[in-house]
Protein backbone atom coordinates (compact mmCIF):
# COMPACT_ATOMS: atom_id res chain seq x y z
CA UNK A 1 0.00 0.00 0.00
CA UNK A 2 1.13 3.52 -0.70
CA UNK A 3 2.36 5.29 2.42
CA UNK A 4 0.64 8.65 2.08
CA UNK A 5 -3.17 8.63 1.87
CA UNK A 6 -4.73 10.38 -1.14
CA UNK A 7 -6.56 13.68 -0.63
CA UNK A 8 -10.16 13.31 -1.74
CA UNK A 9 -12.61 16.19 -1.85
CA UNK A 10 -16.37 16.12 -1.43
CA UNK A 11 -18.20 18.75 -3.45
CA UNK A 12 -19.87 20.69 -0.64
CA UNK A 13 -22.30 23.01 -2.42
CA UNK A 14 -25.29 21.06 -1.04
CA UNK A 15 -26.15 17.52 0.02
CA UNK A 16 -25.00 14.73 2.32
CA UNK A 17 -21.41 15.93 2.42
CA UNK A 18 -20.73 14.97 6.04
CA UNK A 19 -21.54 11.28 5.50
CA UNK A 20 -19.12 11.09 2.56
CA UNK A 21 -16.36 12.81 4.53
CA UNK A 22 -16.80 10.23 7.29
CA UNK A 23 -16.88 7.29 4.85
CA UNK A 24 -13.75 8.49 3.02
CA UNK A 25 -11.84 8.99 6.27
CA UNK A 26 -12.85 5.45 7.32
CA UNK A 27 -11.54 4.24 3.95
CA UNK A 28 -8.13 5.79 4.71
CA UNK A 29 -8.30 8.92 2.58
CA UNK A 30 -7.71 12.51 3.67
CA UNK A 31 -11.19 13.92 3.13
CA UNK A 32 -12.04 17.58 2.78
CA UNK A 33 -14.98 19.67 1.57
CA UNK A 34 -14.60 21.50 -1.77
CA UNK A 35 -16.69 24.56 -2.66
CA UNK A 36 -14.29 26.75 -4.64
CA UNK A 37 -12.18 26.31 -7.81
CA UNK A 38 -8.94 26.75 -5.82
CA UNK A 39 -9.99 23.96 -3.43
CA UNK A 40 -10.77 21.72 -6.39
CA UNK A 41 -7.22 22.19 -7.69
CA UNK A 42 -5.80 20.61 -4.51
CA UNK A 43 -7.52 17.20 -4.53
CA UNK A 44 -6.48 13.84 -6.03
CA UNK A 45 -10.07 12.67 -6.35
CA UNK A 46 -13.58 14.03 -5.80
CA UNK A 47 -16.93 12.74 -4.55
CA UNK A 48 -20.15 14.29 -5.83
CA UNK A 49 -22.59 13.66 -2.96
CA UNK A 50 -26.28 12.98 -2.93
CA UNK A 51 -28.46 16.07 -2.82
CA UNK A 52 -30.71 18.04 -5.12
CA UNK A 53 -29.08 17.95 -8.55
CA UNK A 54 -30.83 21.10 -9.81
CA UNK A 55 -29.48 23.06 -6.83
CA UNK A 56 -25.95 21.63 -7.14
CA UNK A 57 -25.90 22.35 -10.88
CA UNK A 58 -26.99 25.95 -10.36
CA UNK A 59 -24.47 26.63 -7.58
CA UNK A 60 -21.63 24.96 -9.51
CA UNK A 61 -22.22 27.37 -12.39
CA UNK A 62 -22.71 30.44 -10.17
CA UNK A 63 -19.54 29.87 -8.18
CA UNK A 64 -17.24 28.92 -11.05
CA UNK A 65 -16.82 25.20 -10.36
CA UNK A 66 -18.53 23.90 -13.52
CA UNK A 67 -15.79 24.52 -16.11
CA UNK A 68 -12.75 23.80 -13.88
CA UNK A 69 -14.24 20.45 -12.86
CA UNK A 70 -15.08 19.55 -16.46
CA UNK A 71 -11.43 20.28 -17.29
CA UNK A 72 -10.16 18.09 -14.49
CA UNK A 73 -12.52 15.27 -15.49
CA UNK A 74 -11.20 15.46 -19.07
CA UNK A 75 -7.69 15.24 -17.63
CA UNK A 76 -8.46 12.05 -15.72
CA UNK A 77 -9.48 13.18 -12.22
CA UNK A 78 -11.11 10.22 -10.44
CA UNK A 79 -14.68 11.18 -9.48
CA UNK A 80 -17.39 9.19 -7.70
CA UNK A 81 -21.01 10.37 -7.82
CA UNK A 82 -23.89 9.03 -5.69
CA UNK A 83 -27.53 9.67 -6.69
CA UNK A 84 -27.50 13.40 -7.59
CA UNK A 85 -23.77 12.89 -8.15
CA UNK A 86 -24.55 10.19 -10.73
CA UNK A 87 -26.81 12.69 -12.52
CA UNK A 88 -23.99 15.25 -12.47
CA UNK A 89 -21.60 12.75 -14.14
CA UNK A 90 -24.01 11.82 -16.95
CA UNK A 91 -23.36 13.17 -20.44
CA UNK A 92 -27.13 13.30 -20.93
CA UNK A 93 -30.10 13.35 -18.53
CA UNK A 94 -33.84 12.78 -18.85
CA UNK A 95 -36.54 14.42 -16.69
CA UNK A 96 -34.16 17.17 -15.61
CA UNK A 97 -34.87 20.87 -15.78
CA UNK A 98 -34.41 22.42 -19.23
CA UNK A 99 -31.53 24.58 -18.00
CA UNK A 100 -29.91 21.83 -15.93
CA UNK A 101 -26.21 21.36 -16.71
CA UNK A 102 -24.07 18.41 -15.71
CA UNK A 103 -20.31 18.03 -15.38
CA UNK A 104 -20.61 14.98 -17.62
CA UNK A 105 -17.82 12.51 -18.36
CA UNK A 106 -19.66 9.20 -18.38
CA UNK A 107 -21.17 8.29 -21.74
CA UNK A 108 -24.62 7.44 -20.39
CA UNK A 109 -28.19 8.65 -20.26
CA UNK A 110 -29.53 8.92 -16.71
CA UNK A 111 -33.17 9.36 -15.80
CA UNK A 112 -33.73 11.65 -12.83
CA UNK A 113 -36.16 10.55 -10.04
CA UNK A 114 -36.63 7.40 -12.14
CA UNK A 115 -37.95 5.18 -9.34
CA UNK A 116 -40.58 7.75 -8.34
CA UNK A 117 -41.20 10.04 -5.40
CA UNK A 118 -40.14 9.57 -1.77
CA UNK A 119 -42.89 7.04 -1.02
CA UNK A 120 -41.24 4.78 -3.62
CA UNK A 121 -37.76 5.20 -2.09
CA UNK A 122 -36.43 1.83 -0.90
CA UNK A 123 -33.46 -0.19 0.23
CA UNK A 124 -32.31 -3.56 -1.03
CA UNK A 125 -29.20 -5.73 -1.28
CA UNK A 126 -27.07 -4.99 -4.38
CA UNK A 127 -24.16 -7.02 -5.70
CA UNK A 128 -21.47 -4.64 -7.03
CA UNK A 129 -18.81 -6.01 -9.38
CA UNK A 130 -15.35 -5.42 -7.95
CA UNK A 131 -16.62 -4.97 -4.38
CA UNK A 132 -15.71 -8.12 -2.42
CA UNK A 133 -17.55 -9.61 0.56
CA UNK A 134 -21.13 -9.98 -0.60
CA UNK A 135 -23.81 -7.49 -1.57
CA UNK A 136 -23.91 -3.93 -0.24
CA UNK A 137 -27.09 -2.42 1.14
CA UNK A 138 -28.40 -0.14 -1.61
CA UNK A 139 -30.34 2.86 -0.30
CA UNK A 140 -32.34 4.43 -3.15
CA UNK A 141 -33.85 7.85 -2.39
CA UNK A 142 -35.83 9.49 -5.20
CA UNK A 143 -33.03 7.82 -7.09
CA UNK A 144 -32.00 8.03 -10.75
CA UNK A 145 -31.27 5.01 -12.92
CA UNK A 146 -29.05 4.47 -15.93
CA UNK A 147 -31.22 4.33 -19.03
CA UNK A 148 -28.45 3.47 -21.50
CA UNK A 149 -24.67 3.47 -21.78
CA UNK A 150 -22.05 3.88 -24.48
CA UNK A 151 -19.57 1.16 -25.38
CA UNK A 152 -16.83 2.42 -23.04
CA UNK A 153 -18.98 2.14 -19.94
CA UNK A 154 -18.87 -0.92 -17.65
CA UNK A 155 -22.01 -1.87 -15.75
CA UNK A 156 -21.10 -2.75 -12.15
CA UNK A 157 -24.52 -3.41 -10.65
CA UNK A 158 -28.08 -4.21 -11.66
CA UNK A 159 -31.27 -4.74 -9.68
CA UNK A 160 -33.12 -8.07 -10.05
CA UNK A 161 -35.22 -6.61 -12.87
CA UNK A 162 -32.08 -5.65 -14.79
CA UNK A 163 -32.11 -1.91 -13.99
CA UNK A 164 -28.56 -0.53 -14.15
CA UNK A 165 -27.66 1.21 -10.86
CA UNK A 166 -23.84 1.37 -10.85
CA UNK A 167 -21.38 2.09 -13.68
CA UNK A 168 -17.73 2.89 -14.27
CA UNK A 169 -15.99 4.54 -17.17
CA UNK A 170 -12.24 4.96 -16.72
CA UNK A 171 -11.69 7.00 -13.57
CA UNK A 172 -15.36 7.85 -13.15
CA UNK A 173 -17.68 5.85 -10.88
CA UNK A 174 -21.41 6.39 -10.30
CA UNK A 175 -24.10 4.69 -8.18
CA UNK A 176 -27.84 5.37 -8.01
CA UNK A 177 -27.71 4.49 -4.31
CA UNK A 178 -26.06 5.90 -1.19
CA UNK A 179 -23.34 3.72 0.41
CA UNK A 180 -22.50 6.72 2.61
CA UNK A 181 -25.75 6.19 4.55
CA UNK A 182 -25.02 2.58 5.53
CA UNK A 183 -21.83 2.55 7.61
CA UNK A 184 -20.43 -0.02 5.12
CA UNK A 185 -17.49 1.70 3.42
CA UNK A 186 -16.52 -0.95 0.82
CA UNK A 187 -17.66 1.13 -2.16
CA UNK A 188 -15.69 4.11 -0.83
CA UNK A 189 -12.65 1.83 -0.43
CA UNK A 190 -13.10 0.75 -4.05
CA UNK A 191 -13.06 4.44 -5.05
CA UNK A 192 -10.06 5.26 -2.84
CA UNK A 193 -8.22 2.42 -4.60
CA UNK A 194 -9.18 3.97 -7.97
CA UNK A 195 -7.68 7.29 -6.79
CA UNK A 196 -4.48 5.56 -5.63
CA UNK A 197 -4.16 3.73 -8.95
CA UNK A 198 -4.66 7.00 -10.87
CA UNK A 199 -2.03 8.80 -8.78
Amino acid sequence: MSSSPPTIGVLALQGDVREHLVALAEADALARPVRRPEELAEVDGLVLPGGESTTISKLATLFGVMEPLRDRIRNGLPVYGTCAGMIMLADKILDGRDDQDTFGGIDMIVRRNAFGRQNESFETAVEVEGVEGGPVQGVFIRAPWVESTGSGVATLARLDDGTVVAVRQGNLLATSFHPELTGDHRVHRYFVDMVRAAG
Partner: protein
Amino acid sequence: MSTTLPSTPESPETGTARVKRGMAEQLKGGVIMDVVTPEQAKIAEDAGAVAVMALERVPADIRKDGGVARMSDPDMIEGIIDAVSIPVMAKSRIGHFVEAQVLQSLGVDYIDESEVLTPADEVNHSDKWSFTTPFVCGATNLGEALRRIAEGAAMIRSKGEAGTGNVVEAVRHLRQIKNEIARLRGYDNHELYAAAKELRAPYELVKEVAELGKLPVVLFSAGGVATPADAALMRQLGAEGVFVGSGIFKSGDPAKRAAAIVKATTFYDDPKIIADASRNLGEAMVGINCDTLPEAERYANRGW
Protein backbone atom coordinates in the same frame (compact mmCIF):
# COMPACT_ATOMS: atom_id res chain seq x y z
CA MET B 1 -25.39 5.62 11.37
CA SER B 2 -27.86 5.64 14.16
CA THR B 3 -27.93 2.71 16.55
CA THR B 4 -31.72 2.67 16.84
CA LEU B 5 -32.36 1.72 13.21
CA PRO B 6 -33.88 -1.70 12.63
CA SER B 7 -31.72 -4.29 10.89
CA THR B 8 -31.44 -3.92 7.14
CA PRO B 9 -33.84 -5.80 4.91
CA GLU B 10 -32.69 -8.18 2.17
CA SER B 11 -35.56 -7.60 -0.24
CA PRO B 12 -36.70 -4.18 -1.47
CA GLU B 13 -38.42 -2.32 1.33
CA THR B 14 -39.95 1.16 1.33
CA GLY B 15 -40.53 3.51 4.24
CA THR B 16 -37.59 2.29 6.36
CA ALA B 17 -36.10 4.63 8.96
CA ARG B 18 -32.95 4.84 6.86
CA VAL B 19 -34.85 5.79 3.70
CA LYS B 20 -36.87 8.41 5.62
CA ARG B 21 -33.94 9.93 7.48
CA GLY B 22 -31.71 9.57 4.43
CA MET B 23 -34.10 11.75 2.41
CA ALA B 24 -33.49 14.61 4.87
CA GLU B 25 -29.72 14.05 4.62
CA GLN B 26 -30.02 14.86 0.90
CA LEU B 27 -31.56 18.26 1.71
CA LYS B 28 -28.66 19.41 3.89
CA GLY B 29 -27.00 22.68 3.07
CA GLY B 30 -30.14 23.74 1.27
CA VAL B 31 -33.14 26.05 1.53
CA ILE B 32 -36.74 24.82 1.72
CA MET B 33 -39.20 27.53 0.68
CA ASP B 34 -42.88 28.06 1.52
CA VAL B 35 -44.98 28.44 -1.62
CA VAL B 36 -48.74 28.88 -2.13
CA THR B 37 -49.04 28.55 -5.93
CA PRO B 38 -47.39 26.57 -8.74
CA GLU B 39 -45.94 29.87 -10.02
CA GLN B 40 -44.22 30.51 -6.68
CA ALA B 41 -42.97 26.91 -6.65
CA LYS B 42 -41.32 27.50 -10.03
CA ILE B 43 -39.69 30.69 -8.78
CA ALA B 44 -38.35 28.75 -5.78
CA GLU B 45 -37.00 25.93 -7.97
CA ASP B 46 -35.43 28.47 -10.36
CA ALA B 47 -33.71 30.11 -7.39
CA GLY B 48 -32.12 26.82 -6.29
CA ALA B 49 -34.45 25.64 -3.50
CA VAL B 50 -33.84 21.99 -2.52
CA ALA B 51 -37.55 21.50 -1.81
CA VAL B 52 -40.75 23.51 -1.47
CA MET B 53 -43.38 23.51 1.28
CA ALA B 54 -46.83 23.69 -0.26
CA LEU B 55 -49.35 25.57 1.87
CA GLU B 56 -52.51 27.60 1.46
CA ARG B 57 -51.28 30.79 3.09
CA VAL B 58 -47.79 31.74 4.24
CA PRO B 59 -47.54 32.09 8.04
CA ALA B 60 -47.61 35.92 7.89
CA ASP B 61 -51.04 35.71 6.24
CA ILE B 62 -52.25 33.04 8.67
CA ARG B 63 -51.39 35.51 11.44
CA LYS B 64 -53.18 38.35 9.69
CA ASP B 65 -56.31 36.39 8.73
CA GLY B 66 -56.78 34.50 12.00
CA GLY B 67 -59.27 31.62 12.18
CA VAL B 68 -58.44 27.92 11.92
CA ALA B 69 -55.50 27.06 9.66
CA ARG B 70 -55.75 23.61 8.06
CA MET B 71 -54.10 21.31 5.53
CA SER B 72 -54.12 22.77 2.00
CA ASP B 73 -56.52 21.90 -0.81
CA PRO B 74 -55.32 18.69 -2.56
CA ASP B 75 -55.72 20.41 -5.95
CA MET B 76 -53.30 23.10 -4.89
CA ILE B 77 -50.77 20.55 -3.62
CA GLU B 78 -51.03 18.47 -6.80
CA GLY B 79 -50.65 21.61 -8.89
CA ILE B 80 -47.37 22.31 -7.11
CA ILE B 81 -46.21 18.68 -7.41
CA ASP B 82 -46.82 18.89 -11.16
CA ALA B 83 -45.09 22.26 -11.51
CA VAL B 84 -41.66 21.33 -10.13
CA SER B 85 -39.20 18.43 -10.19
CA ILE B 86 -37.77 19.02 -6.69
CA PRO B 87 -39.28 17.43 -3.55
CA VAL B 88 -42.60 18.82 -2.30
CA MET B 89 -43.52 18.94 1.39
CA ALA B 90 -46.89 19.83 2.90
CA LYS B 91 -48.23 20.58 6.37
CA SER B 92 -50.71 18.69 8.51
CA ARG B 93 -52.13 19.94 11.80
CA ILE B 94 -50.55 18.55 14.98
CA GLY B 95 -52.28 15.27 15.82
CA HIS B 96 -54.44 15.33 12.67
CA PHE B 97 -53.32 11.96 11.35
CA VAL B 98 -56.07 11.90 8.73
CA GLU B 99 -54.70 15.05 7.11
CA ALA B 100 -51.35 13.23 7.14
CA GLN B 101 -52.94 10.16 5.52
CA VAL B 102 -54.36 12.40 2.80
CA LEU B 103 -50.99 14.04 2.20
CA GLN B 104 -49.35 10.62 1.95
CA SER B 105 -51.96 9.53 -0.60
CA LEU B 106 -51.20 12.64 -2.68
CA GLY B 107 -47.56 11.57 -2.89
CA VAL B 108 -45.90 14.47 -1.06
CA ASP B 109 -42.26 13.75 -0.23
CA TYR B 110 -42.32 14.95 3.39
CA ILE B 111 -45.10 15.84 5.83
CA ASP B 112 -44.58 18.73 8.26
CA GLU B 113 -46.68 18.16 11.38
CA SER B 114 -46.70 21.85 12.01
CA GLU B 115 -47.49 24.28 14.82
CA VAL B 116 -48.13 26.92 12.13
CA LEU B 117 -51.50 25.23 11.53
CA THR B 118 -54.11 25.09 14.31
CA PRO B 119 -53.51 21.94 16.43
CA ALA B 120 -56.16 19.22 16.11
CA ASP B 121 -55.15 17.37 19.29
CA GLU B 122 -53.86 19.07 22.40
CA VAL B 123 -52.41 15.88 23.90
CA ASN B 124 -51.15 13.63 21.11
CA HIS B 125 -49.02 14.10 18.04
CA SER B 126 -49.51 11.72 15.10
CA ASP B 127 -47.86 8.27 15.19
CA LYS B 128 -45.34 8.95 12.46
CA TRP B 129 -43.90 5.40 12.39
CA SER B 130 -47.16 4.18 10.80
CA PHE B 131 -46.53 6.21 7.60
CA THR B 132 -44.36 5.52 4.54
CA THR B 133 -43.96 9.26 3.97
CA PRO B 134 -41.38 10.77 6.34
CA PHE B 135 -42.22 13.57 8.78
CA VAL B 136 -40.45 16.74 9.87
CA CYS B 137 -41.50 18.31 13.17
CA GLY B 138 -40.70 21.53 15.01
CA ALA B 139 -38.98 21.73 18.39
CA THR B 140 -38.01 24.49 20.80
CA ASN B 141 -35.67 22.35 22.91
CA LEU B 142 -33.94 18.96 22.95
CA GLY B 143 -36.63 17.13 24.92
CA GLU B 144 -39.29 18.20 22.45
CA ALA B 145 -37.08 17.15 19.52
CA LEU B 146 -36.48 13.71 21.03
CA ARG B 147 -40.18 13.18 21.79
CA ARG B 148 -40.94 13.88 18.13
CA ILE B 149 -38.18 11.48 17.02
CA ALA B 150 -39.59 8.84 19.40
CA GLU B 151 -42.94 9.28 17.59
CA GLY B 152 -41.17 8.68 14.27
CA ALA B 153 -40.09 12.11 13.01
CA ALA B 154 -37.24 11.68 10.50
CA MET B 155 -36.16 15.32 10.53
CA ILE B 156 -36.34 18.16 13.07
CA ARG B 157 -36.55 21.90 12.55
CA SER B 158 -36.11 24.39 15.34
CA LYS B 159 -39.45 26.23 15.49
CA GLY B 160 -38.60 29.89 15.71
CA GLU B 161 -41.67 32.08 15.37
CA ALA B 162 -43.15 31.65 11.89
CA GLY B 163 -44.59 34.61 10.02
CA THR B 164 -42.75 37.27 12.00
CA GLY B 165 -39.69 37.92 9.81
CA ASN B 166 -37.84 38.12 13.13
CA VAL B 167 -34.99 35.67 13.62
CA VAL B 168 -34.78 36.05 17.41
CA GLU B 169 -36.86 32.99 18.31
CA ALA B 170 -35.11 30.84 15.70
CA VAL B 171 -31.82 31.73 17.36
CA ARG B 172 -33.21 31.03 20.83
CA HIS B 173 -34.54 27.58 19.91
CA LEU B 174 -31.51 26.44 17.95
CA ARG B 175 -29.15 27.60 20.69
CA GLN B 176 -31.29 25.81 23.25
CA ILE B 177 -31.13 22.51 21.33
CA LYS B 178 -27.38 22.81 20.65
CA ASN B 179 -26.62 23.75 24.27
CA GLU B 180 -28.59 20.83 25.64
CA ILE B 181 -26.78 18.44 23.28
CA ALA B 182 -23.41 19.86 24.36
CA ARG B 183 -24.37 19.42 28.03
CA LEU B 184 -25.32 15.76 27.44
CA ARG B 185 -21.88 15.17 25.92
CA GLY B 186 -20.35 15.92 29.31
CA TYR B 187 -22.56 13.51 31.28
CA ASP B 188 -21.41 10.08 32.41
CA ASN B 189 -23.58 6.96 32.11
CA HIS B 190 -25.08 7.40 35.58
CA GLU B 191 -26.25 10.91 34.80
CA LEU B 192 -27.96 10.03 31.52
CA TYR B 193 -30.91 8.33 33.26
CA ALA B 194 -31.72 11.46 35.22
CA ALA B 195 -31.13 13.55 32.10
CA ALA B 196 -33.69 11.45 30.20
CA LYS B 197 -36.20 11.97 32.99
CA GLU B 198 -35.55 15.70 33.01
CA LEU B 199 -35.82 15.92 29.20
CA ARG B 200 -38.99 13.75 29.27
CA ALA B 201 -37.47 11.72 26.44
CA PRO B 202 -36.65 8.01 25.97
CA TYR B 203 -33.35 7.00 27.61
CA GLU B 204 -32.10 5.23 24.45
CA LEU B 205 -32.44 8.39 22.38
CA VAL B 206 -30.79 10.51 25.08
CA LYS B 207 -27.86 8.07 25.21
CA GLU B 208 -27.59 8.09 21.41
CA VAL B 209 -27.45 11.91 21.32
CA ALA B 210 -24.82 11.92 24.08
CA GLU B 211 -22.68 9.54 22.00
CA LEU B 212 -23.21 11.18 18.59
CA GLY B 213 -23.00 14.77 19.82
CA LYS B 214 -25.90 15.52 17.49
CA LEU B 215 -29.49 14.49 16.88
CA PRO B 216 -29.88 11.11 15.14
CA VAL B 217 -31.79 12.97 12.40
CA VAL B 218 -31.11 16.11 10.35
CA LEU B 219 -31.67 19.44 12.13
CA PHE B 220 -32.84 22.48 10.13
CA SER B 221 -33.84 25.92 11.37
CA ALA B 222 -37.18 27.62 10.71
CA GLY B 223 -39.37 30.51 11.75
CA GLY B 224 -38.18 34.06 11.10
CA VAL B 225 -35.43 33.89 8.48
CA ALA B 226 -35.87 36.93 6.18
CA THR B 227 -32.40 37.79 4.84
CA PRO B 228 -29.28 36.03 3.48
CA ALA B 229 -27.45 36.96 6.68
CA ASP B 230 -30.25 35.42 8.78
CA ALA B 231 -29.85 32.14 6.89
CA ALA B 232 -26.06 32.20 7.29
CA LEU B 233 -26.46 32.98 10.99
CA MET B 234 -28.59 29.89 11.52
CA ARG B 235 -26.05 27.78 9.63
CA GLN B 236 -23.17 29.13 11.70
CA LEU B 237 -25.17 28.34 14.84
CA GLY B 238 -25.36 24.72 13.70
CA ALA B 239 -28.48 24.35 11.54
CA GLU B 240 -27.87 21.92 8.66
CA GLY B 241 -30.17 23.93 6.39
CA VAL B 242 -33.03 26.44 6.60
CA PHE B 243 -36.75 26.70 6.00
CA VAL B 244 -37.83 30.12 4.75
CA GLY B 245 -41.54 30.86 4.98
CA SER B 246 -43.02 34.29 4.58
CA GLY B 247 -39.55 35.86 4.21
CA ILE B 248 -39.39 35.28 0.46
CA PHE B 249 -42.85 35.82 -0.99
CA LYS B 250 -43.68 38.67 1.41
CA SER B 251 -40.63 40.60 0.21
CA GLY B 252 -40.26 43.11 -2.63
CA ASP B 253 -38.36 40.87 -5.09
CA PRO B 254 -38.99 37.20 -4.23
CA ALA B 255 -36.91 35.66 -7.07
CA LYS B 256 -33.86 37.70 -6.22
CA ARG B 257 -34.18 37.25 -2.46
CA ALA B 258 -34.71 33.49 -2.84
CA ALA B 259 -31.54 33.10 -4.94
CA ALA B 260 -29.60 35.26 -2.49
CA ILE B 261 -30.66 33.16 0.50
CA VAL B 262 -29.60 29.99 -1.35
CA LYS B 263 -26.12 31.42 -1.96
CA ALA B 264 -25.73 32.58 1.64
CA THR B 265 -26.83 29.18 2.95
CA THR B 266 -24.09 27.38 0.99
CA PHE B 267 -21.36 29.96 1.73
CA TYR B 268 -22.61 30.67 5.26
CA ASP B 269 -19.06 31.18 6.54
CA ASP B 270 -17.91 33.59 3.78
CA PRO B 271 -18.93 37.19 4.67
CA LYS B 272 -17.87 38.52 1.24
CA ILE B 273 -20.28 36.21 -0.57
CA ILE B 274 -23.03 36.97 1.98
CA ALA B 275 -22.40 40.69 1.43
CA ASP B 276 -22.69 40.32 -2.35
CA ALA B 277 -25.84 38.25 -1.97
CA SER B 278 -27.35 40.93 0.30
CA ARG B 279 -27.03 43.82 -2.18
CA ASN B 280 -30.11 45.48 -3.70
CA LEU B 281 -32.67 42.90 -2.69
CA GLY B 282 -35.46 45.45 -2.34
CA GLU B 283 -37.81 45.50 0.62
CA ALA B 284 -37.55 42.72 3.19
CA MET B 285 -40.81 41.62 4.79
CA VAL B 286 -41.85 44.13 7.42
CA GLY B 287 -41.56 41.84 10.41
CA ILE B 288 -43.07 41.69 13.86
CA ASN B 289 -41.42 42.40 17.17
CA CYS B 290 -41.79 39.10 19.05
CA ASP B 291 -41.94 40.88 22.44
CA THR B 292 -45.30 42.35 21.50
CA LEU B 293 -46.84 39.04 20.38
CA PRO B 294 -49.61 37.93 22.77
CA GLU B 295 -49.06 34.42 24.20
CA ALA B 296 -52.00 33.05 22.21
CA GLU B 297 -50.35 34.13 18.95
CA ARG B 298 -47.04 32.41 19.67
CA TYR B 299 -47.05 29.34 17.43
CA ALA B 300 -43.95 27.92 19.12
CA ASN B 301 -46.05 27.20 22.23
CA ARG B 302 -48.15 24.76 20.21
CA GLY B 303 -46.96 21.18 20.54
CA TRP B 304 -45.22 19.89 23.66
